[in-house]
């Protein structure tokens, strides 16, 4: 088996606060293979974005990686000195943020921002970097790139700006792209274009993509595998069609049940009762147990560990007690 592009093992991220240390990410492990798109879903505050930021080494203090390891193509990157990590950012890991309207520096031409990034990472002349920037803008679908390269960010629409942001993220041909809610701030019609663009880039360049979103529709369209996060842990991870069609974890079931269908079946959308716990008050045992309809005594005392179920992996006591056949 070839080495995964990204391998995260037992990651723990903590935030020191006045009321003690809060654990935002607790024991998260996953891999992303070359060319694979891993979708990460969950409610706000589940730790999706923090996971992405810790991979690229941009967690702001007081947050810090408290345990576990992150490997990029075998190289351990979670404990690199800042200068070496900086060289990896933008070169080997590209990142796309949620809001394209605020991701670009308003005072610089988009071309200058791309050229600056290219020349930070690649040993190219000004002219060569500019040519590459034009090619990149063309690749992400910006019409007349040789003209638009001299435009300022405010002269681009939201969707076009997100394309520029993507061009910036891929300008040094990274092995991994972390896209943090890349479509949330965009119109639905533009969302589809951006999604297919990210998908195409992943396919064409064999880039691994970690796609963080709360939109199951986006995940279903884009991802190969999906990780469902809840309160800083991965509740379930597996191939996207399995998790969408046959979710195992009660929380994943709830999430899938909450997606409206166009088929027009006249049934109420399922709601998950309650809300996600605050980091300062994560329940004992399984963090989902107060909201879970199937919770039993063990869930309130013992934390479930991930259990393999076919291609999926689920952290739920229900599957520890039940025989494998009846769960399917």
């Amino acid at each position, binding site marked *: 088996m070839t080495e995964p592009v990204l391998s995260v093992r037992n990651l723990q991220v903590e935030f020191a606060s006045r009321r003690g240390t809060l654990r935002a990410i607790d024991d998260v492990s996953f891999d992303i293979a070359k060319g694979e798109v891993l979708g990460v879903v969950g409610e706000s505050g589940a730790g999706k974005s923090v996971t992405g930021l810790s991979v690229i080494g941009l967690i702001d203090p007081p947050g810090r990686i408290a345990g576990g390891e992150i490997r990029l193509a075998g190289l351990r990157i979670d404990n690199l000195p800042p200068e070496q990590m*900086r060289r990896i950012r933008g070169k080997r890991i590209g990142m796309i943020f949620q809001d394209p309207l605020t991701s670009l520096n308003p*005072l610089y031409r988009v071309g200058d921002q791309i050229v600056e*990034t290219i020349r930070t990472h690649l040993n190219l002349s000004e002219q060569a970097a500019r040519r590459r920037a034009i090619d990149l803008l063309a690749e992400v679908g910006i019409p007349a790139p040789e003209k638009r390269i001299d435009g300022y960010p405010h002269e681009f629409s939201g969707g076009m700006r997100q394309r520029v942001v993507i061009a910036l*993220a891929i300008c040094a041909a990274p092995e991994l792209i972390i896209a943090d809610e890349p479509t949330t701030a965009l119109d639905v019609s533009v969302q589809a274009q951006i999604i297919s663009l990210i998908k195409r880039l992943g396919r064409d360049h064999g880039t691994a993509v970690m796609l963080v979103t709360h939109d199951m529709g986006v995940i279903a369209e884009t991802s190969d595998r999906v990780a469902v996060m809840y309160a800083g842990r991965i509740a379930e991870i597996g191939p996207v069609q399995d998790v969408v069609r046959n979710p195992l974890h009660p929380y994943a079931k709830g999430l899938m049940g909450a997606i409206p269908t166009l088929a027009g079946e006249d049934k109420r959308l399922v709601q998950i009762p309650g809300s996600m716990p605050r980091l300062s008050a994560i329940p004992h045992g399984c963090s989902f147990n107060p909201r879970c309809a199937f919770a039993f005594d063990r869930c309130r005392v013992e934390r479930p560990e991930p259990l393999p179920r076919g291609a999926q992996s689920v952290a739920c006591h229900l599957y520890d007690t039940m025989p494998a056949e009846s769960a399917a």
Partner: protein
Amino acid sequence: MLAFTLRRAVQALGVMFAVGIIAFSMFRFAGDPVNQIVSIDTSAAERAIVRKSLGLDDPVPVQFARYFADAAQFKFGVSYQFRQPVSALLMERMPATLELAICATVFAMVFGILMGVYSALKRDTVLAKLFQAVSLVGISLPTFLIGILLIYLFAVTLGWLPSFGRGEVVKLGWWTTGLLTLSGLKALIMPSITLGLFQMTLIMRLVRAEMLEVLRTDYIRFARARGLTTRAIHFGHALKNTLIPVITVAGLQFGSVIAFSIITETVFQWPGMGLLFVQAVQNVDIPIMAAYLLMVSLIFVTINLVVDILYTVVDPRLRSTVGRAS
């Protein structure tokens, strides 16, 4: 862009007109100017002649029109105390004030920006905290006190710097400069610091606050995610975004620097327009006071205009909206 500039220029003229009315009314309300010129035992007939020769018996609108027309040509009448044209007096004093104001502003900008950037980037260091504490002193201590303290320390106790005057000056045409002689430069140090200290602390606090704000923005986070060097992020991306409000404040403050130089010039007996004004106030020399008022407001209005235009140079977003509006 041209239309924008023209529109601002017209607004500026409106402001100047209003100031002109105020300056003119000083003549009407600050006592009878004839009394300031003649002595107590001048006869009523002689007073009437003086009144007529100065045009003071004409109707008020006529006087105002004449005053305004003269002021537009920089003729502000004759000083009561010096018996010289006010414009000549002002021109003679202006280089001293401008030199002082420019030095003070440069001092304020250079140290204000450096200290502001430092205390934003190294927020928790002792030096940054010291800067914050010192800036409080600079903001709260009155200018004359700072000037007197500096004189006490560097002129009286240590004897390093002169306590008053401009030192030797060199004439360059009508302009006199103290920048070319050693004594002139030495004389410039303390007044510049005194005059610029408030502006420096203001700029420092502004740069620090803006810089901290900018460092939190998404595009700085994205710049970090792009792997740019810390240097490029701080000084290329963050500082440039910080400078827009700094230009405004520094520009607008330049007007107050000139206006506030009255105090500094008095403390250091600096032979500039401010000192001239203070003497004029003491002697109720209304032509000088009115002319000074007009000059200062002209400077303020011009600076505002320049700052507005400078904005569009720094910020491309303004450039295009301005372009679209015109």
